[in-house]
């Protein structure tokens, strides 16, 4: 009996002739938490999909607890004790929380009927474990992304798995839930379960993992115990070069011109009397716990949802009717948090996505699009943002890695050179290198006089990038902290619901 839970040797995988994994050797020890990180598109998800039976490898062997292992389907992987929390959420919105948790193995009675009592009670236990604000009978459609992610995690934990794979599980979790999750991971480790933890947040990886494997361009760039490697070294392994700093530093000035002003905005029960100002050259962070209403605020600002009350002044103009097209007309841009359903045309090529907004500027009076100009802009955006794509004219966005998809969304807006930029979790699922690029883009825009509203759940990056941070809690702005007074504890406290501020 060896101490490895899972061993992969010589694993190769190519998509339509383009190799993505080049003969990987990879091992997971029993009872360890193995961190896996690497740039977007390095092949992390592909590798995990092979382990989880979603994809089949072209060549190579896998050994699971000293037995040969070659799953043909996710069900087989599950049967062998592998639980997989996908990067993209894998829940069914028309089913209840309890049903989702048991979707791949309902307990049934003699008549083939689902044992509802049983699944409800087990689901309730799972819910209690993270004290989620849901009942087993809640429809998933009624849940926020963050809670959905927790449900997804609870679902995997229910399976008595021997190996659990987390593919970027915290992308929409608040710090509180993150802590609960990390606590659970610790507990699981105590019970001898091996885990693979994929993330772009190095801080988390260092905190959780025993060893760290770095993937680069489909190869293993090295595996080291977490204690023996520094953050800088890790980044160097990932991107193949020295990255002197995580946040770019750019000299910029904040002018007094207010580009966007909101007064007493209200929307249903989710945004309650919010007033704020964004100045030219300023990057304003918006922090809050999950469900605080930041996304709703951004949507109301951009006219995706119609406000119930309040005024909005965009570029010195009082907006009577706020709609995305009116806002774009006022030179605003909005990156949504849910890129799959709100940001991208998943079944269309990269090109069509990139030029979606810009095309309107490239038309003549008859409405004919200048194809040459369009292609030029697309090429530039792909180059500037370093989007990894084989053939932008034919490759579908759905086949890009998560980070590259996000870059496409970014490219779509940056092409317009917006003056007001609303960003809802723009770095979610984006690797360190690309994050740096995104921060640079944001700062560069600010330097050139744009106003940026930066919504994020990661205090680190907010404190690194922003000039000012607003804190939101249950639909209200509960605090404003200038750069000089940034303090993690203080910000977190403002975000937590309490009797102090009402």
């Amino acid at each position, binding site marked *: 009996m060896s101490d490895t839970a899972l061993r992969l040797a010589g694993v190769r995988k190519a998509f339509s002739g383009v190799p993505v994994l080049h003969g990987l050797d990879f091992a997971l020890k029993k009872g360890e938490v193995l961190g896996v990180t690497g740039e977007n598109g390095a092949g992390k998800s592909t590798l995990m999909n092979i382990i989880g039976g979603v994809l089949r490898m072209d060549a190579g062997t896998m050994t699971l607890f000293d037995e040969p292992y070659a799953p043909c389907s*996710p069900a087989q992987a599950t049967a062998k004790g592998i639980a997989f929390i996908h990067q993209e959420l894998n829940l069914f919105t028309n089913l209840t929380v309890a*049903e989702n948790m048991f*979707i*791949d193995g309902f307990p049934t009675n003699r008549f*083939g009927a*689902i044992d509802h009592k049983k699944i409800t009670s087990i689901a309730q236990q799972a819910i209690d474990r993270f004290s989620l604000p849901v009942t087993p009978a809640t*429809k998933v*459609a009624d849940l926020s992304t963050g809670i959905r992610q927790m449900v997804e995690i609870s679902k995997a934990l229910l399976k008595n798995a021997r190996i659990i794979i987390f593919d970027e599980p915290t992308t929409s979790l608040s710090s509180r839930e993150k802590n609960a999750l990390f606590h659970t991971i610790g507990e699981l480790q105590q019970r001898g379960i091996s885990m693979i933890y994929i993330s772009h947040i190095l801080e988390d990886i260092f905190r959780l993992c025993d060893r760290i494997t770095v993937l680069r361009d489909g190869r293993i760039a090295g595996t080291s115990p977490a204690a023996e490697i520094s953050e800088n070294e890790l980044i160097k392994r990932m991107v193949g070069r020295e990255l002197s700093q995580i946040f770019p530093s750019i000299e910029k000035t904040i002018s007094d011109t207010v580009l966007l002003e909101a007064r007493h905005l209200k929307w249903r029960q989710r945004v309650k009397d919010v007033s704020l100002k964004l100045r030219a050259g300023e990057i304003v962070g918006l922090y809050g716990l999950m469900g605080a209403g930041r996304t709703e605020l951004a949507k109301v600002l951009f006219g995706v949802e119609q406000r119930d009350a309040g005024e909005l002044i965009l570029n010195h103009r009082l907006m009577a009717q706020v709609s995305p097209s009116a806002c774009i007309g006022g030179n605003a841009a909005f990156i949504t948090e849910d890129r799959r359903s709100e940001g991208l045309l998943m079944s269309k090529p990269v090109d069509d996505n990139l030029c979606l907004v810009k095309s309107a500027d490239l038309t003549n009076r008859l409405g004919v699009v200048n194809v040459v100009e369009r292609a030029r802009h697309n090429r530039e955006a792909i180059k500037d943002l370093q989007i990894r794509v084989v053939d932008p004219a034919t490759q579908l966005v759905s086949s890009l890695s998560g980070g590259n998809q996000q870059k496409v969304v970014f490219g779509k807006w940056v092409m317009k050179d917006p003056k007001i930029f609303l960003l809802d979790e723009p770095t979610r699922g984006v690797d360190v290198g690309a994050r740096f690029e995104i921060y640079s883009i944001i700062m560069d825009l600010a330097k050139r006089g744009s106003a940026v509203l930066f919504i994020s759940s990661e205090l680190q990056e907010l404190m690194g990038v922003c000039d000012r941070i607003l804190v939101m809690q249950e639909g209200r702005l509960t605090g404003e902290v200038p750069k000089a007074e940034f303090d993690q504890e203080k910000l977190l406290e403002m975000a937590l619901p309490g009797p102090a501020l009402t």
Partner: protein
Amino acid sequence: MMQENIRRSSGYLSWLTSYGIYAVLLLLVVVFSLGNSQFLTVDNVLLILQQASPLGIAVVGMVFVLLGSGIDISVGASMFFVSTVAGCVLNASGVIPAAWLTDIRGVALVLGMVLLLGALIGWINGMLVTRFRILPFIVTLATASILKGTGLKISGSASIGVAALGDLANGRVGPIPNVLILFVVVLIACDYVLRRTVYGRHLMAIGDSARNAERTGIKVNRNIVASYVICGVLGTLAGILSAGQIGSVSAGFGEGNEFIVISAAVLGGTSLFGGKGSILPGAVIGIILVTTIMNGLAMMNASPFIYTIVRGLIIFCAIALDSMGHQGELR
């Protein structure tokens, strides 16, 4: 995602959109019963239910297919095809013993044969949709054409009497029509399957996202094929009952039924994009509304020309009310 399910919360409107179709039905009942005292009698209500039952059974089948984000527009043609085959068997002396024709055995035999045929048609549709990844609309359009042509070839386009099925389709147990009893049985059984069994939940999941279902390890193809088989079986059962009610199968039999069936399903709240819908009360209320309009207009002695116009207007209003509060798919 979230917002799609939040209905506008202002009082009246929200009530109206949740119960819009019931409101329309109620209004119709009031208008019709004021128009003719015969409308709200036990006899007439039973008549409406009797008329609604055969196609209602087909609507139940259609709900399964729609939930798995498919569509089956071959229902009308397969009704025609199987009824033709059944008619030929019943009429061809020597195929089944003459004595059987007059008793239940002949009917049972034909029924069994027809349901098998329906299952086969559904299976073929399902296999084409899943194995060859052809859009359900195209598959069933094509099979509809083939079934219709084959049926016509068999019958030579002439009407075929199916009087032997009359007892089954027109008979009653006490005052209750047989078809109604069958309809209720199908309803309860299918609603149970949909809500309470693994198959039902898996089908809903597939309708929500086939890709996620695949990744979760649900046998997507097998489940979808099953939904077409159910639709095929129930559709042909409906066809046989309907043919039995008429007493004959002619070349035009079943034509356009697919649209009645699909619109009844949609009226009952089933989405054409999968994953959303119900049998109880959805499928039932849809088909009853459609049937009531026709019955009521006849009760009012309305001019025959305006039947289609009124039917169109009412369907329009009912769906409009139902959709108002939703964030629709805009398709």
